[in-house]
């Protein structure tokens, strides 16, 4: 079963607007990762936030992590049409220290030019 639950399932915005996606998980984690998947392609790693971090930035991406609520959010600022993709959060399976990830169901982001 998927540990991560993401919302919204789909998000449609105009270019230039900000997009926020949320992820909740159930077990304790070492880190949480976000990946992007363009249609028909593999997943691309975006950012990793460790359990002792609360916020992390990478370019137009901002990720927050609240371990007390077991939730994370991904904010994409000043969105572009090229940001159109599915976005997944992923957590390492507890007790492992390798890439055995549990993925959320994903948020489909559409950015209209």
């Amino acid at each position: 079963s998927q540990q991560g639950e993401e919302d919204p399932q789909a998000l449609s915005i105009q270019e230039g607007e900000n997009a926020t996606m949320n992820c909740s998980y159930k077990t304790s984690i070492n880190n949480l990762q976000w990946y992007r998947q363009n249609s028909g392609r593999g997943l691309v790693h975006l950012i990793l936030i460790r359990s002792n971090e609360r916020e992390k930035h990478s370019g137009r991406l901002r990720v927050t992590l609240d371990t007390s609520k077991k939730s994370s959010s991904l904010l994409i600022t000043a969105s572009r049409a090229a940001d159109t993709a599915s976005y997944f959060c992923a957590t390492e399976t507890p007790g492992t220290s390798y890439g055995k990830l549990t993925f959320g169901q994903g948020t489909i982001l559409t950015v209209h030019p």
Partner: protein
Amino acid sequence: GAGVSQSPSNKVTEKGKDVELRCDPISGHTALYWYRQSLGQGLEFLIYFQGNSAPDKSGLPSDRFSAERTGGSVSTLTIQRTQQEDSAVYLCASSLRPSSPLHFGNGTRLTVT
């Protein structure tokens, strides 16, 4: 230079036939993973290789599924006596170290008719 390469990109097979899916990881990446992506189940972990060994095969759905990795590089996922429920996109990923972010290939879309 090159990313993770998977072949074939698409495979259509008849129920009951065997199929082999190939993955060429990024050179120097010691860890290799197979995941499966389907509409109903989302992204599921199948197997993890460290070098040529597979310390975690817990995600393989049945004994019809097997995988090997040779020379610490190329990996093959074999599905015997394919069933319609095996239809999915099979994604390969590699990482520099077990705990590093994953680099995914574009996947093999398997359709069992």
